[in-house]
């Protein structure tokens, strides 16, 4: 096992998949000569050339739709959105073309592609550049949505996403790019739709994805000292969601907290709560609580931004409340 960063893991996945399958092309703003706005595509232009690593103009609707069109005839484009904030400009092509093409064509036209880039807030990027939009994509049948929390998951899930015959929305975490973790050598495919218990526990189930997994683990470590044994479940894939893993955990702990960075109203957590109360109603000893980003556009000021994001303290507080502690 090698200790590498989340960024390197993604870069390796891209490189390995491009080597494996020459139907795979990478396109997006600055992915080539600039090596990627966040350097995820570092070295790929040199290695695979300008026919497979394409710098696009700033035209999200156009180049995402172009990627969909290329996928319609069998290429496997990886479209990098510089950040998912800009995917809003392309969302018509993502939803009305990519997600529906197979269905509208009566099964004739699959759209196998990956749309990837960083989601969530960075550091003081302000309202237009700090959004966690996974709930929007999760709402749409025909899409798969992935949001890895560790370098190992990032690599294994991205490789599986590239090989998946559907359109996968792969949401990375800008603030995790530099984080390190063990990544198995060689091929290590992680199947889509399978959650991982990042920390086993008996007392409370905390469901979290992407960066929030680390926040949840932090909280769990502290709660352990207080004698509270938290189980942290990371769905890893948000659509299709591994409801079984979540429900089984809650049936064991009888208590759940759902953590996400995004906005609360109609968020991913709301769906998870619905699933839990529906499938584990008789097991619940307390209402499921949610910890989410503040229900506001992200403010720029450092102190305000910090207060808007879920953190260890907020997760601990929610866990204590579902346990009716203090």
């Amino acid at each position, binding site marked *: 096992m090698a200790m590498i960063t989340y960024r390197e893991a993604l870069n390796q996945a891209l490189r390995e998949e491009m080597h494996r399958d020459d139907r795979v092309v990478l396109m997006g703003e600055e992915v080539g000569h600039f090596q990627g706005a966040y350097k995820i595509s570092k070295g790929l232009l040199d290695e695979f050339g300008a026919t497979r690593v394409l710098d696009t103009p700033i035209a999200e609707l156009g180049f995402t739709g*172009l990627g*969909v069109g290329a996928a319609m005839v069998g*290429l496997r484009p990886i479209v990098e959105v510089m950040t998912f904030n800009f995917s809003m400009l392309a969302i018509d092509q993502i939803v009305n073309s990519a997600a529906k093409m197979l269905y509208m064509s009566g099964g004739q036209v699959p759209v196998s592609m990956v749309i990837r880039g960083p989601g969530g807030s960075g550091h003081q990027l302000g309202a237009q550049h700090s959004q966690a939009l996974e709930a929007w994509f999760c709402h749409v049948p025909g899409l798969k949505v992935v949001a890895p929390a560790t370098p190992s998951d990032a690599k294994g899930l991205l490789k599986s996403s590239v090989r998946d015959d559907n359109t996968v929305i792969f949401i990375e975490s800008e603030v995790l790019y530099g984080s390190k973790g063990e990544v198995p050598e060689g091929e290590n495919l992680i199947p889509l739709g399978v959650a991982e218990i990042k920390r086993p526990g008996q007392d409370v189930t905390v469901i979290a994805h992407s960066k929030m997994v680390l926040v949840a683990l932090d909280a769990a470590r502290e709660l352990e000292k207080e004698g509270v044994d938290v189980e942290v479940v990371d769905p890893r894939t948000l659509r299709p969601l591994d409801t079984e893993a979540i429900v089984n955990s809650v049936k064991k702990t009888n208590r759940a907290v759902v953590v996400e960075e995004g906005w609360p109203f109609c968020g991913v957590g709301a769906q998870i709560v619905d699933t839990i109360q529906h499938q584990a109603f008789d097991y619940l000893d307390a209402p499921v609580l949610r910890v989410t980003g503040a229900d506001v556009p992200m403010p720029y000021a450092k102190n305000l931004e910090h207060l808007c994001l879920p953190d260890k303290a907020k997760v601990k507080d929610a866990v204590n409340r579902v346990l009716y502690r203090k």
Partner: protein
Amino acid sequence: MESSNTATTAANETEVQAPKSSQSLTQRDRARREDPTRMKNLLEQMVLIRRFEEKAAELYQESKIGGFCHLYIGQEAVGVGAISTLGPDDYILVSYREHGHALARGTDPGAIMAELCGKSTGVSKGKGGSMHLFDVSRGFLGGHGIVGGQIPLATGVAFASKYRKEPRVTLCFFGEAAVNIGSFHESLNIASLWKLPVVYICENNRFGMGTPVDRASSTHDLSQKAIAYNMARAAVDGMDVLAVRDAVGEAVERARKDNLPTLLEVRTYRYMGHSMSDPSHGAYRTKAEVEEQKQHDPIKLFTSTLESLGVISKKYIEDMEKRVHEIVDDAVAFSEGSPEPEPGEIYTDILMP
């Protein structure tokens, strides 16, 4: 600046009288150079589209066809002339007004009619409908309902062909109102920048629903938009199937040989309402205008050209109409005889396994 603006305006003037070459020849001139069998075939395709859609209109009135149903009547020469230039491996993407293009491509009329009627035997299993016809076996990639949506898609299909070094050309059809949407702009810029083998065919039928082109677009000469992308262009008479065939043929060659895109503005006219749920005329155009336009009917024009050149006879026309009539009747019979999709179809084709 003053001088600059006069410069600009001047420039526009010159642009406005768009490339004439494709108009300079009469249909007779072109017909003399064209293979008679081919021309008979083009005529029959146009007539098939006309009769097929007249029947579709009836079925819509009988509520056998639902949703939005956009007819191509009046524009047949565009799809027929354009698609006649393609080889079997080429691609076609169209808007929701695509019945004619699918028929011109040779897709089974029965399967198209069945799709319009929402039957399991439809080209898209009855799940797509009138706006979403697909026939991958013929490179017919839809049928798209969002205005301009097919333009980036077609650009991507062309990208794939170039990437694979396959000599395939992609035709992308859209209406004149679609040039005002962002996806047109973003796509044409990329197609020119990356030199992609695609032909953008703007079917200027004068109206986007109830809005005449001059209330929607700031330039009256739409092919002029190509200047902004350094792209080859031409304005074409869309009522002359041979003029369309020639213009598209040159563009297809440019795409196939040099990987260069082209923007063609093909001037045509829609006889019916925007869709079957809209009136054929009303606030936005008079009945008289529609009738006047029918004088330039592409089928009438081509028929008389071929007659006058002795390529076809009255008798031939009668037989052709009979053949077409049978094809349409068979299509309807096939559709009527086909079952609705199984309820289970709701949950298939959402994701690949």
